[in-house]
């Protein structure tokens, strides 16, 4: 009866498969501090995929449609065409969040290195969430924007450091 009322009048109980996903989602900065109800709404729109070792999850230069969260397993970030290993990813790590706001080509390839379970969160689902639950949708968008802003600030700082080092190196090598 409670279940029927919940289904008809709005509150929806967590699905059985959702409980594992909550633990992972709560650790992701984008979904931190969301209520159980909000997490349940997110969990319902996530796509669960499984990859075997060496299987590619996303490919460099292909359209970026959204982000992936590693629920369990390990993956590697590779730069094409030489497949240079840029970094490693493990449980709870996420990638591709910029694509949630803008459909940009993937900047690197990510391939599973072990058996991998991932959760996919895509732009089309985020936009549809904004339409039916604007409060939650805006919360997510603001957090993604904040993460991208932080990353941009860090990138700017690194760029400044690198250009300073370059300038110093040039001064040292120039004949006096």
């Amino acid at each position, binding site marked *: 009866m409670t279940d029927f009322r919940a289904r*008809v009048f709005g509150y929806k109980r967590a699905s059985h498969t959702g409980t594992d996903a909550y633990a992972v989602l709560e650790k992701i900065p984008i979904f931190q501090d969301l209520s159980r109800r909000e997490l349940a709404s997110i969990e319902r729109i996530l*796509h669960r995929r*499984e*990859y075997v070792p060496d299987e590619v*999850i996303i490919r460099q230069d292909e359209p970026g449609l959204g982000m992936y969260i590693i629920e369990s397993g390990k993956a590697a970030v590779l730069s094409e065409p030489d497949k240079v290993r840029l970094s490693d990813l493990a449980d709870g790590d996420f990638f591709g969040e910029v694509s949630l706001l803008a459909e940009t080509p993937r900047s690197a390839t990510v391939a599973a290195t072990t058996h991998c379970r991932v959760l996919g969160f895509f732009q089309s689902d985020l936009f549809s969430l904004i339409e039916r639950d604007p409060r939650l949708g805006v919360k997510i968008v603001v957090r993604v924007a904040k993460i991208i802003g932080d990353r941009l600030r860090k990138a700017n700082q690194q760029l400044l450091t690198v250009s300073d080092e370059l300038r110093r190196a040039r001064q040292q090598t120039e004949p006096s």
Partner: protein
Amino acid sequence: MSSPVLRPRAEVAPLLIAMVLAVFLLFVGGAAHIVILSLLLSYILDPVATMLESRGMSRTLATIIIVLGLGSLLVLGSVVLVPAVFEHLKTLQSGSTTAQAASAIADMELFARDKLAFLGLGDINLGERIGEMRQAIGERAIAFLLSDAVSLLINAVTIPFMMFFFIKDGREMKKRMVSMVPNRYFEFTLDLLSKMDMQLGNYLRGQFLDAVIFGAMSIVALWILGVNYFVFLGVFAGLANLIPYVGAIAGVVPAALVAVLGSGNLSSAIPVLIAYAILKMLDDFVVQPFAVASSVHMHPVLVLIAIIVGGELFGILGMLLAVPVAGFLKVVLQEGVSTYRKYRFS
């Protein structure tokens, strides 16, 4: 709970079998038009459910409200329209002609003898022909209504029932279908579906809104002009307006004929023709730019082929559904090809 990872080839096989089975069942079972109509209606009404959801309602309650609303409209329409339809059909079946209609027919005969004799229409007996035609149409329509009453009733129950589940569980159904796609084609499928959704959603909802507005404008115009059966003729004009090129003519001809037969004067077709010309201009320059956000451009030959094929498969309903379905297939093909090019499938 984890499901074992299937290799692409193993995953494609059940998907293909399911698709072939679905197509087979649809066409052999003769339920295709019911499914297509339910899908189209759910697709058109989906934003209403989303809007209700954004106001804090659950999807289920939103869907119940939509289906009940549509059901009430249908019941109301049936209560008002069905007795009137039977009354009109009985008059048609009797083949009797009013004095005004007889005079109009005589005028038309005279016109044909004087002006169109060179086409071999000099000895045409229009009165007799029209009488026969009316009787045949009336008999056929009554036979159709009586013999197909059961299937009409079944459709009236099945379509809202299917619509309910398509609207309520549509997202989940789409998610489950996508989950069957092999990893390599997963993002491509999502990309394709979201682009199709954008294009088709705008197109179908726009067409539907345009048909409703055009139908309502026609009803008002015919009512002002005092044309009989203005509600049927207006609804028919609205539906016919869904069909590009031919729709406008298909909508105006019956209205002009009814006006002539009702008044007994050939010249009474002129106000109807002028009214429809104004309505069509209003539709093209005012309604369509607002209602139809994106149009799926189709070549006139493609439209005609679609209408013929639709008519052959599912009769009048098929003719009406042919253009939206052809538009759907065109978008699928176009978006499929352009999205495919962005992926490095080898």
